[in-house]
């Protein structure tokens, strides 16, 4: 399972796993878009904690979902971007979407 999606109230959380490239993202994108079109969430959370590889296709996924969420009045947030995915996300100038403090990441150093 390359993506685990949980819909709850106003948000949809999609936990991405494995290697995110152009090919692997085709079914993932479809699953996320289906969940979003059903739930019409205020926030789509994309979690990269279990992503082992990502190239710019992952950035394409984020940009495309930002557009989709904007069209229904929602936003995109990112988490679990401490690993390699974060390097590509920062290169793309999308670091601002990364949640700074998360309950799941109690160990994460708090930014002053």
């Amino acid at each position: 399972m390359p993506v685990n999606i949980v819909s709850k109230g106003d948000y949809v959380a999609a936990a991405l796993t494995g290697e995110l490239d152009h090919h692997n993202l085709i079914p993932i994108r479809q699953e996320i878009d289906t969940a979003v079109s059903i739930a019409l969430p205020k926030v789509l959370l994309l979690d990269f904690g279990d992503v082992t590889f990502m190239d710019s296709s992952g950035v394409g996924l984020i940009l495309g979902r930002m557009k989709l969420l904007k069209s229904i009045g929602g936003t995109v947030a990112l988490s679990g971007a401490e690993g390699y995915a974060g390097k590509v996300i920062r290169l793309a100038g999308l670091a601002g979407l990364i949640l700074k403090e998360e309950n799941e990441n109690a160990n994460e150093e708090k930014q002053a």
Partner: protein
Amino acid sequence: MQTKKNKLNNFSLKFPSLGRNEGFARGIVSAFVLPLDPTVEELNDLKAAVSEAVTNAIVHAYPNEAGTIEMSGSATDSDAGYIIEIRVKDKGVGIADISQAMSPLYTSGGEDRAGLGFTVMESFTDKLRVRSVVGKGTVVTMTKTISGKQ
């Protein structure tokens, strides 16, 4: 100190421009570089750069039907570390305006393409060279020096 440059190893292979070969190409590069003991980041940078080049060939060079992608690589021993050179070559449609294609966020690939392929290749390697002729194909050559165990 005398400058030494020894070619340690090289490879060359061909595969069809199918999406599943993005992962295959990364696996080849990993297998080629791992014996030189790269850092995790160096390995991931090379994998990402190759992934971008091969994806470009699949998505852009052969938009309608699968063609052949040639990938070759070499590892050279030098004072600075191991110099890894990877070349990805296609005989696809070619790029009319290379500087436009290489500019960040430009994409001809439609929705959900970030337009960052060349930016990743440029940022994650030391040197990127792109040669292309419309109707003939494109050759992307990337060079990266990895520290390795000396």
